């Protein structure tokens, strides 16, 4: 029992980062209908940039953090303007190929710039000291990660619910033509969606980077996001968050209980087994929107 609780708590922490990245993915899908295969590379780039600013350039962490966010927003906007906007109206397969190409390019750029060795944030930002919660042990860095991930999730949830820009973004996701008829610029909403998508992923990257250090495999995060968003329903932002948390917990529990019997590696494949099961049983996910039918 005690072990299970421990697994749930650590799973929740990683899950909160999945949730953050999944939210970015769902947001881009919801407002632009583009499946972004480069989401994991946004995580990678975010992690590396923050590490570079902090460890290599010696910028204080608060500024490095903020600067990473600014750069991520700029990157999202630039990619939307230069790469994705010209693709509006092109066949879906071309757009998907573009995001896959984007993923490869970003990954290679990171390799060219920083190599493939594991990089660690030095000096460490958060201590690894364990804190006791009853019988459960949680290290400080995990708490910070969880806290920040939830801070961002909360801020964006409030943004979509209460601000006028947020509401207009949801309006575009709901019906583009009507949104245009009221003067909402769809192009601008696309640009904002990509910036937020890049921003939350970059934050996810620097948070995870703080736990384990970063190397090129950080981009695998992007793959883990698929089970999360499909569990939650592709076009539901709330669903993406819950999906992320669930996948985080599930992979942790399955990994630790089944590794003994299967000889390791279960943690890596667990989310994808879940993915296949969801697609068979509940293809719209838990919160995927089916059209509202009035009766």
């Amino acid at each position, binding site marked *: 029992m005690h072990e299970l609780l421990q697994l749930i708590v650590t799973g929740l922490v990683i899950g909160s980062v999945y949730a953050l990245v999944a939210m970015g993915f769902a947001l881009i899908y919801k407002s632009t209908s583009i499946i972004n295969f480069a989401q994991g590379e946004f995580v990678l780039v975010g992690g590396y940039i923050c590490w570079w600013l902090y460890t290599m350039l010696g910028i204080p962490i608060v500024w490095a953090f903020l600067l990473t966010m600014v750069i991520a927003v700029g990157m999202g906007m630039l990619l939307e303007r230069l790469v994705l906007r010209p693709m509006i109206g092109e066949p879906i397969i071309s757009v998907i190929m573009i995001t896959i190409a984007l993923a490869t390019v970003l990954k290679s750029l990171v390799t060219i710039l920083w190599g493939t060795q594991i990089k660690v944030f030095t000096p460490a930002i958060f201590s690894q000291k364990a804190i006791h919660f009853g019988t459960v042990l949680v290290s400080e860095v995990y708490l910070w990660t969880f806290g920040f991930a939830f801070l961002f999730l909360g801020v964006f949830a409030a943004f979509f619910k209460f601000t006028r820009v947020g*509401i*207009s973004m949801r*309006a575009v*996701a709901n019906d583009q033509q009507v949104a245009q*008829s*009221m003067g909402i610029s769809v192009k601008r909403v696309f640009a904002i969606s990509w910036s937020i998508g890049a921003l939350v992923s970059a934050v996810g990257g620097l948070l995870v980077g703080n736990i384990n250090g970063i190397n090129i495999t950080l981009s695998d995060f992007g793959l883990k996001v698929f089970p999360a968003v499909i569990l939650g329903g592709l076009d539901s932002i709330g669903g993406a968050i819950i999906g992320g948390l669930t996948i985080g917990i599930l992979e942790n529990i399955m990994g630790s209980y089944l590794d003994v019997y299967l000889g390791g590696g279960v943690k890596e494949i667990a989310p994808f087994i879940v993915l296949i099961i969801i697609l068979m049983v509940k293809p719209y996910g838990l919160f995927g929107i089916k059209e*509202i039918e009035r009766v």
Partner: protein
Amino acid sequence: MPLLSVNNIEVIYDDVILVLKGLSLSVEEGQIVAVLGANGAGKTTTLKAISGLLKTEEGEVTDGTIEFDGEKINHLDPELIVRRGIFQVMEGRRVFEDLTAKENLVAAAHTQRCSRGELEKRIEQVYHYFPRLKERENGLAGYLSGGEQQMLVIGRGMMAKPRLMMLDEPSLGLSPLLVGEIFEIIVKLNKDLGTTILLVEQNARMALNIADHGYIMENGKIVLDDTTEKLKNNEDVKRFYLGMTDMGTKRSYRDVKHYKRRKRWLT
């Protein structure tokens, strides 16, 4: 000078389908103008040409000009046209289903650089005209009744404080009682707020009762235009749009042939 003047426009969809063939109409400030016509006559296309939404669906104004307040607007993007004060309330009550009624109103004020207080004031104004929306303000718009959705889309139009509001078949699929209610409010908008209204309708009787001027469209052209008083007394309009015969009796099947012949002659 009219507030809106459409001069001899031609609209082509998909580079081949000619929908409007030299259409002209004008709307004076403060008027209610009705455009009547059968299905497929091009009424909605006319509105979309004016609001610029044609550009979102492979349509294009290939000839002629559209002028609003003396300035040519036919090349502008829809959002710029909204900013100039033209708001199209689209056909079929297209509410944002996943947003609440109130959020629908907030989204509609997107072009308005107004403070929170001003925004709330405008929402209150909409509720003043449509008290039923206030009761449902936090409910998802997708679950409102048809009448409430129509009220909501007109309310959205009010949020943008347009000089010209274009309504596309507000009576579509509503009960006669509700249609009466909606039309009363359209008149009130026109009288109280001074909003100029361009109304596209199938319900010719209702439309002619509230409008000052009417246009009759067929096959992408205006075939008749006059003050509504005169239109209501025009024999052809009476027969084809108001469904009345000379004696006020029902028509027999023999007249159907005659109807077709007359109609062909009319175009």
